[in-house]
């Protein structure tokens, strides 16, 4: 049996939940076994049934309003119990902030091997995972019979059907000491934008933009593409842009379908965090900028001239 954790945010399934559900269903099919999902916290009407679209037949629902935020102890306890009760030997989560926090606990509780951040279905017993911040791939094999897998966001595209899943409420035994912290506040950082690790299109600016007052051209381009904005490390360090936009080896690692780099030289540490992007576009006035070697498309030119033109051209295509 494969058990997948389908995370809710404000009562809705997260995008990563559809990815892990589809991945887990496929994994189960290949192993000739079943796959069930577990969800924690309140869900909006009809939401959990949608996991059927990804090939899940049954969803266990720990419907408790105390559990609408992630508590690493409580969540890992519920998921581990669900795995035990259903004889699951494989547990799948997303390699997002929640998965990274609770998967290690689940692995220890189940005495299972933890395969973190895998990017595809296994080849035999081997799971691939990017290592050295995107500079290489490793094949990992579990030495135990039970495994906990976390799947990298944007690595697995669900093929959705119109099937629906049945939902079964489960009782959970949670007490005060399972809440390992008290959440005192939350604040949205990039209003209206898809979070960077989940974004399919990212528009990123570097020191070549000269100053924070020039970011409008980056933001305009991002807006027509419905993209999330990012930046190079020095740009975040000098305070031109917020830290949470910093991508690269010591920032966020991303894997969008399209990455547009504007006025970024393409230092090895920057490339490490973005070179798994499916398509890379570089706009830089220096033809020798190392980024061109890692790019699919490029323009050697002044960002202040090229970027507004690109925004306009994309607008035209989108409206035609």
């Amino acid at each position, binding site marked *: 049996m494969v058990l997948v954790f389908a995370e809710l945010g404000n009562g809705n399934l997260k995008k990563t939940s559809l990815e892990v559900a589809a991945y887990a269903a496929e994994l189960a099919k290949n192993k000739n076994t079943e796959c069930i999902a577990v969800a924690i916290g309140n869900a909006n009407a009809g939401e959990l049934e949608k996991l059927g679209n990804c090939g899940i037949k049954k969803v266990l629902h720990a419907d408790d309003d105390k559990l609408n935020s992630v508590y690493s102890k409580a969540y*890992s306890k519920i998921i581990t119990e669900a795995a035990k009760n259903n004889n699951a030997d494989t547990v799948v989560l997303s390699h997002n*902030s929640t998965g*990274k*926090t609770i*998967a*290690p*606990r689940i*692995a*220890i509780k189940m005495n299972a*091997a*933890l395969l*973190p*951040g895998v990017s595809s279905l296994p080849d035999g017993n*081997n799971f691939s995972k*990017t*290592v050295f*911040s*995107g*500079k*290489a791939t*490793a*094949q990992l*094999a579990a*030495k*135990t019979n039970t495994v906990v897998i976390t799947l990298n966001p944007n690595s697995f595209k669900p093929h959705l059907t119109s099937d629906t899943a049945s939902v079964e409420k489960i009782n959970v035994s949670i007490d005060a000491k399972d809440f*390992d*912290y*008290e*959440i005192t*506040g939350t*604040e949205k*950082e*990039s209003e209206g*934008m898809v*979070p*960077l*690790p989940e974004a399919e*299109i990212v528009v990123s600016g570097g020191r070549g933009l000269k100053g924070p007052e020039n970011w409008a051209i980056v933001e305009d381009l991002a807006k027509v593409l419905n993209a999330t904005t990012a930046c190079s490390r020095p740009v975040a360090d000098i305070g031109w842009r917020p*830290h*949470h936009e910093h991508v690269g*080896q*010591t920032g966020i690692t991303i894997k969008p379908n*399209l990455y547009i780099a504007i006025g970024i030289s393409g230092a*090895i*540490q920057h490339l490490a965090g973005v070179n798994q992007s499916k398509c890379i*576009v570089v706009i830089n006035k220096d033809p020798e900028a190392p980024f*061109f*070697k*890692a790019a*699919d*498309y*490029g*323009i*050697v*030119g002044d960002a202040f001239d090229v970027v507004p*033109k*690109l925004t306009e*051209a*994309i607008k035209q*295509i989108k409206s035609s």
Partner: protein
Amino acid sequence: MKILVCISKVPDTTTKISFTDNNSKFNEDKVQFIINPYDEWYALVRALELKETLDGTVTVINVGKADNEQIIRKALALGADDAVRVDTDPADAFTVANEIAAYAKPENYDIILTGKETINYNSGVVAGMIAELLDLPYVSLASKLDVDGNNLKIEREIEGMKETLKVAMPCVIGAQKGMAEARIPNMRGILASKTKPVKIIAPITNEIHVQSVSFSLPPEKGAVKLFSPDNVKDLAEALHNEAKVF
């Protein structure tokens, strides 16, 4: 206040990655090693700041063989009081967590700090495993940490959100950017580091959960397709019709 900081040894960020032994091993030839940046810049420096303002001790722990001494001395030069090295070449994250938890258990640290992940394996799972093995609260991806009585006030940065929370000590914290500013060791620190104690202890088990079977490098990119700044429209068309990315 008694703080334990876990430090990992990783290749310098400019390293050209390659493999040996039929692609089963990272090629360490001519590689410069450093303390994992998240461990050094954020976890260790914040621990030192707390020690400076609140009194207490900072111990660093590393699981690794004798050649890791160099990065341990660097941590001592930055200001850690003493160090522990578990003398084994760890094969997976579980080994690292298991050894650190076993050492830390009787020591009763108030805070166990790690970086959010290493830049070589990028797993970010050691801290969570230590927390589970010691049955302690765990906060990952912390970008700010302040002491408030017996509690820590933490800010976390997670997918497009900032979360503030309160957690009781003892606890395990994974640190990321924002928590502190990187420091450079000064001459006094470097001199003092030479005589600070490094305790070498034997590993408790050789149990491993995950084997790294082989490694590969990403396929070379084909040549970049360049467009002229006068034909930006053609780039937009190519992205739309050829790459089909919007």
